[in-house]
């Protein structure tokens, strides 16, 4: 079976969630949300069942204590996996959600840091998801640190970056080395393409496999069972990505 890019990215993220127990998904995050719904379905009733809390709608949103509950709950250590993006991301996994140019009157202003300056510190596994893989995004040094990738000794930091998923590849972040390491390259792309489009240095092991595509089973489940569930929160995404007329 062939799959489109969104489906591929959903399944790539899903493969990163297999040892997660409680995944939270922020606003406007249909791809991570779909991945978490998929793994929740696959692990249902099992000892490693995944719990999912999505904000941004009522579906799959268990929070009843207002906007602060996601953050409080993360501070309590109940959430192990979260997603962040970035207008810019650099090689030390610093992320910038505020804009490009000189702060505060930036050349191009983006929405702002959201909860990143907190969640990046307290959630053990933060997966960076940024499809656009260009030197505009992956820069040597971000113009504004919404949240730093690493912290010095003595800073309370149970959380931090875990992986980076783009349209080209999957990288894992090594917190001790403070560097990304290329894990796999998506089918149809090459290490050279990743190098050409990345503005920061990263480690390349001798063997870099191709990112495995989804199994037919997983893809079927995504299209049949998960798409109606994700449509409760992201109807437009579902009508765009999943050819539900099939």
């Amino acid at each position, binding site marked *: 079976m062939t799959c489109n890019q969104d489906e591929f990215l959903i399944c790539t993220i899903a493969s990163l969630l297999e040892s997660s127990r409680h995944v939270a998904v922020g*606003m*406007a995050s249909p791809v991570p949300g779909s991945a978490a719904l998929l793994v929740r379905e696959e692990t249902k009733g099992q000892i490693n069942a995944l719990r999912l809390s999505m*904000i*941004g*709608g*009522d579906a799959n949103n268990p*929070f*009843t*204590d*207002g*906007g*602060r509950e996601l*953050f*409080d709950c993360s*501070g309590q250590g109940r959430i192990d996996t979260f997603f962040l993006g970035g207008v810019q991301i650099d090689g030390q996994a610093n992320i910038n*959600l*505020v*804009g490009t140019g000189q*702060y*505060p*009157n*930036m*050349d*191009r*202003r*983006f*929405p*702002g*840091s*959201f*909860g*990143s*300056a*907190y*969640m*990046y*510190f*307290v959630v053990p596994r933060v997966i960076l998801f940024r499809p656009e893989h260009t030197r505009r995004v992956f820069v040597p040094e971000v113009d*504004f*640190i*919404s*949240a*730093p990738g690493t*912290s*010095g000794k*003595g*800073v*309370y930091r149970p959380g931090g970056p875990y992986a980076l998923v783009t349209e080209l590849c999957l990288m894992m972040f090594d917190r001790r080395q403070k560097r990304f390491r290329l894990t796999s390259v998506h089918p149809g792309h090459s290490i050279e393409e990743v190098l050409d489009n990345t503005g920061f240095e990263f480690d390349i092991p001798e063997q870099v496999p191709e990112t495995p595509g989804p199994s037919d089973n997983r893809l079927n489940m995504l299209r049949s069972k998960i798409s109606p569930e994700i449509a409760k929160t992201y109807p*437009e995404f579902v009508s765009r990505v999943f050819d539900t007329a099939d």
Partner: protein
Amino acid sequence: MSLFTSLDDLAQQVPDQSLVVLPPDYSNVPVAAVLALIRRGVKDLHLLFAPIGGIAGDLLIGAGCVKTLEAAAITMGEAGLAPRFSEAIQSNAITMKDSTCPAIHTALQASEKGVPFMPLRGLIGSDVLKNRSDWQVIDDPFDKDSGPIVLLPAIQPDIAMIHAPLADREGNVWIGKRRELVTMAHAAKTTLVTAEKIQDKNLLEDDLTAAGTLPDMYVGAIAEVEKGCWPLGLAGHYLPDTDMLAEYLKQAATQSGFEDWLKANGAIR
């Protein structure tokens, strides 16, 4: 002054230079009241979002009502960037106090508890912190090994503005599980409310409705306004008007287009 009033009288109760807090786009944003504020010509607001803003912020900024803005983000969501906000930042027309979601929740909770500050984890090494001279970093006094921790000063808004599906004749307001509205109301000096409907039955008399009710002691005025969140949605009542939001984004790409939108939608008489 009567507790129950009209939409435009409600807007009169927001003085220039007020510190006004508004809810995030997913939570009962009183857009009709925001348009009434623009009609009234309010000036020099210190506008706070709890913790992120959308069209309500873009409208007030574009209409020149805002001097200082504090938020964790201003976004039109999937639709795109907030055009009047971006323009105002780039042209230095407003002072932006960039924050992060839990910092705003925490600063409001500090005001709710009547304490001058509250601590928050995270933030160390972020440029958000670096640009906030009003925040402080101390060593945890209980555990020298637990490292530095940020203290956030309380934010007491002059006015919280919210919309609700239902209020009663006593002034109680049903907010359901949207409890950021409760924190905002507790933290603010007073709360101005628009409600889809005002009912006779006291919301506190039934255990089921009482659980989601903001009591009247926090409420300064209430105006009955149907579709008070439009073009945003109100959960369980109506969906966002995505066509109108797209139309807004298109027109608000320029200041003159923005002003046309305001005129067409009754925010300029």
